[in-house]
């Protein structure tokens, strides 16, 4: 089986400081990979390198494209990469304001990706947007409201709908539950888990919240100072941490 995404020794440094270094892994279709670590451990740098937002200093990111099989996305031309990032890829930002257009209605936000890939039938776009708003539990009568009128949780769900509307195969998520209160977080996680399972999505989830990866991720990578210190099945890593840093992370979780 070809991995959907094969990452080979990705490295990125900011001047003399290491962003991330020598990260390699394979992600298979339908698999969810969690990346955890404390602040500054390089998880967001890694995610941005993979998603094409940052140019890494070295390494390869091979994505299994629909047309030509595995291709190095770092060697692709800008138009190709943009096309990929609005069809087969999705990126969920931690702050929904980064991923949404705040002065455009919810329906327009969901429809943008469709229009960007050439949809020109208004009713078709609207029906699809309606369908997706329903799937992320946003009432249809809020469709023409702007995201600025939405609560934080709704904004995050809208961002997810906007990303998934073109049927991507790979979703990058950067702290998708960050900044939300716990009950809203739980609902969002529930929704995400449902969507990932129903649609057979592959995902890379960056978070510092171990509960999130416990719920969503099949496999886990633990990062520290830009390097991967431990990886394996999620339950295995969390229940039987081997590396000192992982043990520290796991033991730092507060139990109510």
């Amino acid at each position, binding site marked *: 089986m070809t991995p959907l995404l094969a990452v080979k020794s990705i490295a990125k440094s900011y001047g003399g400081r290491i962003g991330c270094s020598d990260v390699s892994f394979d992600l298979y279709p339908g698999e969810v990979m969690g990346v955890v670590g404390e602040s500054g451990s390089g998880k967001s740098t890694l995610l941005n390198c993979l998603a094409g937002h940052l140019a890494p200093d070295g390494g390869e990111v091979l994505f299994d494209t629909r047309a030509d099989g595995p291709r190095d996305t770092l060697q692709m031309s800008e138009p190709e990469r943009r096309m990929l990032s609005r069809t087969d890829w999705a990126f969920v930002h931690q702050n929904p304001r980064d991923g949404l257009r705040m002065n455009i209605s919810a329906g327009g936000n969901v429809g943008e990706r469709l229009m960007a*890939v050439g949809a*020109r039938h208004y009713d078709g776009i609207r029906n699809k947007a309606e369908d997706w708003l329903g799937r992320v539990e946003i009432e249809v009568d809020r469709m023409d409201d702007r995201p600025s009128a939405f609560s934080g949780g709704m904004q995050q769900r809208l961002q997810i709908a906007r990303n998934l509307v073109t049927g991507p195969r790979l979703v990058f998520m950067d702290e998708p539950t960050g900044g939300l209160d716990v009950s809203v977080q739980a609902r969002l996680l529930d929704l995400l888990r449902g969507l990932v399972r129903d649609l057979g999505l592959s995902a890379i989830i960056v978070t510092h919240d171990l509960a999130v990866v416990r719920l969503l991720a099949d496999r886990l990578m633990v990062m520290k100072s830009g390097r991967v210190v431990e990886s394996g099945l999620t339950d295995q890593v969390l229940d039987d941490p081997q590396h000192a840093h992982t043990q520290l992370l796991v033991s730092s979780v507060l139990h109510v």
Partner: protein
Amino acid sequence: MSNYNFAYLDEQTKRMIRRAILKGIAIPGYQVPFASREMPMPYGWGTGGVQVTAACLTPQDTLKVIDQGADDTTNAVSIRKFFEKTAQVATTAHTNAATIIQTRHRIPEAPLTEAQILVYQVPIPEPLRFLEPRETETRKMHALEDYGLMHVKLYEDIARHGHIATAYAYPVKVEDRYMMDPSPIPKFDNPKLESAAIQLFGAGREQRIYAIPPYTKVVSLDFEDYPFEASKADHACDLCGADHTYLDEVIVDDAGGRMFVCSDTDFCAARQADGHRGRLSPTEDAA
């Protein structure tokens, strides 16, 4: 006797502007940056259009200047006087007699010919500006032909108003390549962008020149189920009776009285001279 260089600008500046114009014509719809000069009028009064006109004028030209279709409004009168004084060219109000027409917000009703140049005054040349404020990003979008966002604007119109409510500065795609703002002309004029004349667009404050060469394909954006419509007020001109021209609405009293007149004053006057009459035309014996 005038102490101005011909058409106000110095020769080097005119050469620089001509180079930008030629590049614009070579790449239809592409916004060419140019070193816009300070002109003796405020930004927003047509500094871009005036510079383009100055670069195109020759002593043999006949100039017409219109503002919202009219030859006798402040903006048109002062620009016409400006060139009468600095270039001493002949001026006219007749569309057919002009070789260069500078316009603000209208395209003349009479079809233009290959011997004519139409110069537009443009306030904001970037059609994507209100959707994407970053210039670096809009340039990239033009380079990559990444224009999905423009349809989002039209989508928002339909979602909010039930139809495409954008009535002026209606975005067009030129020669299947560049997205272009046709300046704030009413969308009624959009079909006239496919013309025999050379059309030049000058934005002074934003320092951009772009062009549509003669007979270039210009398509107004739309949705399959909400096609583009060149709309106008649903009336006939009250002075000349024309029902196919763009109309201005004029309030005539404080009791709800109103009249509709052609915004193109020259076209309307020519029709009246030909004996066409509208609803509110003065009776023959009164005149």
